[in-house]
């Protein structure tokens, strides 16, 4: 802060010096050319050669020569130095642990690296192999289905619950909006699955879906119905099971997210809608949803990426011979030491995630409503 004020002090502002200089040179140009050359060489107000500025980056302002400090460019330098001081470490970490693995992965996807000392560059061979690999397409089909269905199911449920929690209740004590009874309790309960580790969720649900001793089939059995082999046979059943578990474990997050977004909508808007005689459904579609659209879109992208990224739940809960998502297929290739091939699958997933985000951003683009 101190630095900022000192630099910001007006007195011998470089700008004014410069303009004076300019006037001077204008004057001298009027007289003679040789004088102009001499005028430029005058010591105090001259702009420094750029090279001399660089060492100043490392000097505290107190030790910086005035000549440098009063330079016009010193102010910009000081500003960026200030910002850089905060960002350098996080950026370095980001570059080291996020950017460089990405780049390395992309590089390895073009090699035949098998974990050994040699990684030969083989061009697009891995991608060609992937194109011909039926197992890849099978897994991608599952992942694509998840990508389409999971966000819709999860977000619809999340919005519904959030609306019920914030605005679904009766209008008591003259309040324009209120949640259903016990809404603060529900909010906590919905969030529970988020607190559990993914592998625990997968193991527990694996038991719930167990054909012979699971909770679901046990219940069906009591009702006299023979339950199906959820995770032991039909691909569709396993997909339904997987979808249920993913939605179940993520919906709480979206309930909280959307509740917050709905809570930020000014009450008077809802009041106005109420006065105009709008019912709950009308209020929701006419007022609430458009006002939280930005949040919904963000949630949609996030959930889509989560769906593409489904790994632990599928690996732990669903037997690989029944159904597998692309990340599980990728994992299996890693396990077999086909690192080059596995990373190329990873790169394809990256591209798909980016494409998905871009499409959703485009599709969901609306004018923002300010409130």
């Amino acid at each position, binding site marked *: 802060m101190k630095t900022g004020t000192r630099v910001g002090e007006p007195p011998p502002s470089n700008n004014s010096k410069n303009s004076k200089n300019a006037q001077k040179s204008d004057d001298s140009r009027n007289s003679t050319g040789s004088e102009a050359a001499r005028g430029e060489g005058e010591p105090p107000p001259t702009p420094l050669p750029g090279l001399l500025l660089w060492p100043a980056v490392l000097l505290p302002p107190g030790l910086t020569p005035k000549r440098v400090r009063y330079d016009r460019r010193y102010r910009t330098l000081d500003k960026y130095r200030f910002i850089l001081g905060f960002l350098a470490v996080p950026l370095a970490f980001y570059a080291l642990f996020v950017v460089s693995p990405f780049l390395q992965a992309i590089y390895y996807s073009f090699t*035949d690296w*098998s*974990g*050994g*000392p*040699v990684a030969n560059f*083989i061009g697009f*061979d891995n991608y060609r*192999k992937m194109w011909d*690999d*039926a*197992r890849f397409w099978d897994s991608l089909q599952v992942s694509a289905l998840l990508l389409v269905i999971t966000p819709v199911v999860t977000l619809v449920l999340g919005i519904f619950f959030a609306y019920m929690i914030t605005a679904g209740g009766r209008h008591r004590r003259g309040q324009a909006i209120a949640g259903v009874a016990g809404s603060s309790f529900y909010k906590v309960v919905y969030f529970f699955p988020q607190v559990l580790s993914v592998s625990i969720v997968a193991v527990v649900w*694996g*038991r719930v879906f*167990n*054909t*012979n*001793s699971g909770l679901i089939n046990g219940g069906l059995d009591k009702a006299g119905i023979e339950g199906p*082999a*959820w*995770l*032991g*046979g039909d691909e569709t059943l396993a997909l339904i099971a997987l979808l249920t578990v993913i939605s179940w474990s993520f919906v709480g997050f979206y309930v909280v997210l959307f509740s917050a977004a709905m809570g930020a909508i000014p009450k008077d808007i809802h009041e106005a809608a109420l006065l105009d005689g709008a019912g709950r459904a009308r209020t929701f579609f006419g007022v609430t949803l458009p006002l939280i659209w930005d949040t919904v879109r963000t949630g949609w992208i996030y959930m889509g990426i989560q769906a593409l990224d489904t790994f632990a739940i599928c690996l*732990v809960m669903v*037997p*690989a*011979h*029944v159904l597998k998502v692309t990340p599980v297929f990728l994992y*299996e290739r*890693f396990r*077999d*030491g*086909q690192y*080059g*091939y596995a990373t190329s699958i990873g790169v394809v997933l990256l591209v798909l995630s980016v494409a998905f985000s871009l499409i959703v951003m485009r599709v969901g683009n609306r004018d923002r409503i300010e409130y």
Partner: protein
Amino acid sequence: MGTTSVNRRDVMKRAAAAGLLAVPAVGALSSCASGGGEENKAEKGEKSKKNPLGVKADAGLAVYIFNGGYGDKYAQFVTDMYAEKYPKAKPEQKATEKIATQVQPKIVRGKPTADVVNNSGAEQMNIGKLVHNKQVADLGEVLDAPSWDDPDVTVRETLVPVVEQMGRFGGEECYQLNITLTVYGNWYSAKLLEDGLDTAYPKTWDEMLAVCKKAKAKGIHGWSYPGGHPRYMFFSMYAMFAQRGGREVIEAMDYLEPDAWRHDAVKDVFEAWEELVAKKYVLTGFDGQQAHTEMQTAWTKEGKCLFVPNGSWVENEAKDTTPKDFRMAVGATPSLDSGDKMPFGTLYAPAGEPFIVPAKATNRQGGLEWLRMMYSKEAARNLFEEVGSLPVVKGAIDGVKLPSGTASAQAAIKAAGENIVIPRFMDWYNELFREDFNNMIHKFMQGQIGPKQAMDTMQKASERILKDPDITKVKKA
């Protein structure tokens, strides 16, 4: 997983560096082996009748044992034998869970500190790579040496032939020696079959179907398999492929030959099983990771099914749920009909717990001698007593009172004689078994696909592996 790969990477980097240095040395080594010129630097003593491998009596010996389910007591027994014969050698045994981390860097650097290694466990060294890089010694010398118990019989003659077969990697040399045997097949309760159903073990498929029918009448399923791990079916099917079509059928599978899985024998076996599935003799519904345990409980404790595909570890694994009078037993796969190429009794019984001797071990002869001792009757019997697995030494546990499952497994091996079959592709191209067969047989056992699709799926998978540049192929010698 992360740490493992990093380690492996480190190891391999070192390997690359060491490889450059090691190449001339390897050349020197092989030239002396063939030319019979100067010996390498390994410690060697005089060969004699008492010392057929020419062990130097005072050379130290380092033994590395994988410290897993078997522990290392069984090996300490052998190390103690060694110490007794060569007191000056002061042999040292190390038990570790991380064989690769402990042993491999030094092997690839060309200066192994281990003289004999039990290459086992989750962190075992990739034997294919070791062989490829000529880092392991040919153990033929041990097999040719006179056995510990009888100088007139070679070690080779005391072992079941599977041991040498499984040490070969497309050539005649034997690079690893296993010490235990696993018997796969149709496991059943002799009490239920003989007393409950009043039937003998079915030797033909027709008899098998008849038994299943009889069982069904009593409300018992003839078969079951762990739906969560459908690959168990392989344990009851594999020997049938060989039995039906002879060894060339299974060899074709191992070497990924064209139409290996489209052989008529394969078709016949699948069709036989299809009938069993179609008649609903199979108890299903054991899904999830613990499927095998659930199935074994239903089989032993609840008596819901008669036969299960399994391996000889099951007796120990299902110990807690097995009633005392269960009389667990294993049977070989039934013959289809008189057109079979191999007799009833053909058995899928591979050897396990591999040992290697590093090619450049300082006391290589000592390592070989240690293995010769391991294959003594005394040590083999001790192995059985310590870990409960069948030793590969013939007749080593004769006269020992065996639990019923193990006894029947041993009887099955005796009955099989030379007709023991091993799927080498399981070692060489593991994904063909673990993924492709697993996925295929799941659908097959559910009745979703028939024999034709089953064969097509496997053939396509076999061709995919053949084409995959990321998988090193083993060539037929």
